[in-house]
């Protein structure tokens, strides 16, 4: 049985806790022992990507310290997982010891779907979600972590779920962290394009493994009063068929 140390991105913790709760459920259903080290806060990605590397390094150090002994660190966010796995080492400032620590942790950090499929070799988690769903390839999942098929494999095994491919699934949704508020016009134009692709695919839900993309895409869809909604992959995988209950609609 694998002991999983869960990393919950700060923004999921505060604004979208249901994503974290769903991840816990799926992991436990998969037979993992889930722990949530409470000393964790933020992986430092916002500081890293805006160029505040001193602040990023301090947060990265906390992350490495908190998870140093973990067997596997699982995170329901592609970009936070990518930060821990790929960006930490860049914050070395010539410090070889830090590079070593960061490199030692990196192979134990997993994004949620990656962990299920690559590490647990699990694609059927017993979920039931009778809806038409489009998968958006969140950039960091796809390009930093090379996760393209894993989420789709998981979705294909969900009972009742119809997986559809939208156009331009790999095009950035336009969130981009600080970019979303620094250059809102460009960010929103990209978000509208993504939303239009979701709608054209006649999907009821758009999903991915990155909560921040979903906040952005979901926000655009809601503002446009679109039928489609954004939902995290973990929430779909956590949905189960309950006798007598109406079809899950989180």
């Amino acid at each position: 049985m694998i002991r999983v140390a869960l990393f919950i991105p700060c923004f999921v913790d505060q604004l979208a806790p249901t994503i974290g709760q769903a991840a816990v459920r799926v992991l436990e259903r998969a037979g993992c022992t889930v722990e949530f080290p409470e000393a964790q806060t933020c992986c430092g990605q916002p500081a890293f990507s805006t160029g505040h590397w001193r602040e990023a390094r301090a947060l990265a150090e906390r992350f490495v310290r908190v998870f140093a002994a973990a067997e596997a660190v699982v995170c329901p966010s592609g970009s936070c997982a990518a930060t821990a796995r790929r960006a930490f080492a860049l914050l070395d400032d010539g410090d070889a010891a830090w590079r070593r620590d960061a490199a030692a942790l990196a192979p134990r950090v997993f994004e949620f779907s990656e962990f299920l499929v690559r590490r647990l070799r699990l694609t059927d988690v017993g979920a039931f979600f009778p809806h038409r769903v489009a998968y958006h390839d969140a950039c960091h999942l796809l390009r930093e972590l090379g996760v393209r098929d894993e989420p789709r494999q998981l979705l294909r095994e969900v009972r009742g779920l119809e997986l559809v491919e939208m156009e331009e699934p790999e095009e950035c949704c336009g969130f981009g962290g600080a970019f979303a508020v620094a250059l809102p016009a460009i960010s929103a134009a990209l978000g509208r394009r993504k939303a239009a692709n979701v709608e054209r695919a006649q999907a009821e839900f758009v999903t991915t493994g990155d909560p921040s993309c979903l906040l952005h895409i979901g926000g655009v869809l809601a503002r446009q009063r679109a039928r489609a909604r954004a939902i995290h992959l973990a929430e779909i995988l956590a949905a189960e068929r309950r006798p007598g209950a109406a079809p899950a609609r989180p």
Partner: protein
Amino acid sequence: MNAERQFRRAGARAAADAARQDFLRAGLAGYGHAAAGARRRFADWSAARDRCQEVKAEALAHLDAYLLRFEERVVARGGHVFWAETAAAARDYILGVARRHGARRVIKSKSMVSEEVRLTPALEAAGIATVETDLGEFIVQLRREPPFHIVTPAMHLRRGEIAALFQRELGAPPGADSAEELAGAARRALRDQFLAAEMGITGANFLIAEEGLVAITENEGNARLCSSLPRVHVVLTGLEKVLPRLADLGLFWPVLAAAGTGQPITCYNSLIGGPRQPEERDGPEEFHVVLLDNGRSALLADRERRDTLACIRCGACLNVCPVFHTIGGHAYGATYSGPIGAVLMPQLGGLERFGHLAFASSLCGACTEACPVKIDLHRHLIRNRRDAVAAGRGRRREGWAVRAWAWLAADPRRYQRAGAVLRRLLRVRRVLPGEGGMLDPLRPWTRARALPAPPAESFREWWRRRTAAPPARDSHD
């Protein structure tokens, strides 16, 4: 108005024009499909990229030696090599050559370096008529615009706009608006220029050190004419474009074509080693190569970013960039646009003027994935942000927010209390009217995007409740 404000305004304007974006994307998507097809011709595209990266890294590691070798060979064939430290030095040298030959008419083929050094305005100011001969460049020159894209300069224009331009500027007949007719009109207009010009100026795609050859890649044949017909041929190029040996082109020619235009190989790949040789029938009497530094040697010294000099200007990173898709090339207000522009411009033109371009990216990484020489583009953008912050040129409000956040997140208890306050504030905001309106403090977000209701309970609060009262499985339902 400062460059950053100008950029924001131009970017927002372009982002609001959905029809133009569709047109731009349709064009770039055509490239995308072609490029995918061309990559399939490689048994192993990723191995090809690795080798390109390796060869370029070697060329840059010993750039001085390779350039000297190149110079020696060109000089041996009777050519001249001039090392220009700055844009002004390059301009002055070329003007000097033109004056010495009494040149009144210059024909030019596409060269981004000539845009970089603002060559055409300098020649025009000296009374030398200078004509761009690449069709796209010719069109944007007639419109008095800079190129929109480093490979395809007039891709932002529709056929009708070009037809109207040709009617006005070339006296082309109305109604002649097919691509064939327009290209034909340009061919006819430029034929006489080719035959009359005293001097031709081209760029270079590669400088072959061992054999002392300038390699020029093009489809139209205009660079061939510029380097064949006039009495003087000047090559203006960045000094980083070195490849060690001729044999390297067996890889770089197909890779450049695949990544750039999606062709298996470009139509004309010329190799030029000097002026007309004694046995030869035609060709220029004088041959000059101007090697431009203009900040490149400083970039070479920067180990972290040296790989930027490996760029072969294929344009692939522009073609896949979501920001470029949305705002196009002109909004950048820079010689080089798109991801490579955002990486390179602060190096060549100063952090002060171009530092803000580093923030014009969602950091999606599509550029890095597309780059045939594997330049770490999106991470260089972050490095440029880091340097902007270190130089005190970061975005001020963003800096406060990040520092405040980092301080809160340094202590889990502090962080948790702050989170609770934040959620409460967001709840209060929700009951206020006018979400997304002028008075909404979150307007940059909410103008185009709704913000969901903040939860009453954070994840960690839920977790604590759950672990305090086992068996609490599914207690969140």
